[in-house]
């Protein structure tokens, strides 16, 4: 007979995971004061992304000058991680060439573990060296169900530019 005392529970995850590491000030700042939200007049690339599981939504518009991101608009609604990531991304890719945007996207996805890599993407001794503010999002990696929130804007931007 199965009794509570005979059940072997899975070992609880040790409580070293820090919520503070995920909800950093810079993330909450971007969540509450999202950058680059104004709709664009001239739109060269656009895409909408959403996460049907949690309802996060993001709409991206890009205006290109040659192959350079001349202007970007990122609008949406959702959790702090999805919206802060979108806002920080808009800052990071503004003024960059499409090739540079692809590189930043690749680096970000590697940092988040969305793309497998052995590379040490983020140098612990030089915080902010590679991705700037975006490195604040690496705390999300410890919350696997939330990684897709951080990734939503990036996948949507890729979709817009690859169309």
């Amino acid at each position, binding site marked *: *007979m199965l009794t509570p005392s005979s059940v072997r529970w899975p070992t*609880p995850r*040790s*409580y070293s995971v820090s919520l503070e590491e995920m909800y950093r000030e810079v993330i*909450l700042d971007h969540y509450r004061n999202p950058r680059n939200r104004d709709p664009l007049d001239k739109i060269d690339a656009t895409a909408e992304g959403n996460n049907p*599981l*949690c*309802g996060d939504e993001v709409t991206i518009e890009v205006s290109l000058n040659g192959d350079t991101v001349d202007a970007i608009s990122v609008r949406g609604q*959702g959790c702090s991680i999805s919206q802060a990531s979108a806002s920080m991304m808009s800052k990071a890719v503004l003024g960059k060439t499409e090739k540079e945007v692809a590189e930043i996207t690749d680096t970000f996805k590697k940092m988040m573990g969305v793309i497998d890599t052995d590379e040490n993407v983020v140098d612990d001794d030089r915080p902010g060296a590679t991705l700037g503010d975006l490195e604040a999002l690496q705390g999300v990696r410890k919350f696997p169900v939330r990684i897709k929130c951080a990734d939503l804007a990036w996948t949507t931007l890729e979709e817009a530019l690859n169309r």
Partner: protein
Amino acid sequence: MTDWAAIRADFPILSREMNGYPLVYLDSAATSQKPQAVLDAIIDFYSTTNANVHRGAYSLADEATSRYEDARSTVARFIGAQPDEVVFTRGATSAFNTVAYGWALRNVTEDDRILLTIMEHHANIVPWQLVSDLTGCSIEFVGITESGLLDMDDFHRLLDDDVKLVGVSMASNVLGTINPIAEIAEAAHRAGSLVIADAAQAVPHTSVDVYETGADWICFSGHKMLGPTGIGVLWGRPEILEAMEPAEGGGEMISDVRLDGSAWAAVPHKFEAGTPPFAQAVGLKAAIDYLEAIGMDEVERREQELTEYALKSMAGVEGLTVYGPATAEGRVGAISFSLADIHPHDLATILDQRGVAIRAGHHCARPLARTLNVPATARASVYLYNQESDVDALIGALADAKELFSVA
């Protein structure tokens, strides 16, 4: 007096830890936990009685069939019905689909309308949209009042002779609101419409007599009422079930199969194509036995008490908004809320780190979320095994969330 601490101790999962804290399970509106008696019944069935039902000529198959049909009788008695009015389905969702394919597709035309409410679960919306795609019928939705009640004026305004089906939840999984099903059914019948009721949030929490509801079909699932997943119930008025066609074809649902056509088995078996969920039915019977040993009136009273305690505690949290009735009267224990500008998804993550399991999202009711003008809500829901300290843990974790988000 029920010993609620002893009841809680019957649920083994509630003694586990989550993220270093005792598990505080406040998501019973999504699925309930199972008492030892249900787990034992399932293990006992597989250990002693397992054989396919309504097939074998040997004794073991006969025993299995008896236990399956015994479960049907228990469900029937529990909801005030006769056994042959009780169809076992894979869940509440497939109960709705059985009516959509077995009745609506054959009885609803492009001139007809289906009337639903804005607080329906997707299970009582999407099947009718599929029916609409194939028949051309239109669908309309009854709205809600500011206090989260069904807008009955709107209902009476939208109800006319063209309405062939009214679909309504007996209790909302988002707002907790208990709807006046008898009043709705009476008006619908006068207008010449049939009524399908979503009882998934009602049957687990309150005493339901299907004939008192006035509805023509009632759908609910086993896993929200202490039973296993993979089983649900479609109850229907006998003359309606008799006239309905099966939604699925296969074994067990036939009386004869010829190459040029087949004849159906008698109700309820004609709706149970394939090997039915008989072990789950045995588990569901054990769940009902467990609930009946406590008494549904007592279960309801205790949940009201817990809901009242939760609503009062939450009212003391600055920045917290509850969606739905503000008092425990006229509602079940599913409480949707938001806290300041903290997104529900963030709240759920933070609470999880304190061992508190709540739901965040649109709760399979996106039209309602849009009506409330919120992309998502957080939802805490209680059941008979919860206790006041669970609510206290929730309130404590909400304070942590406010601190993390620097909300005053």
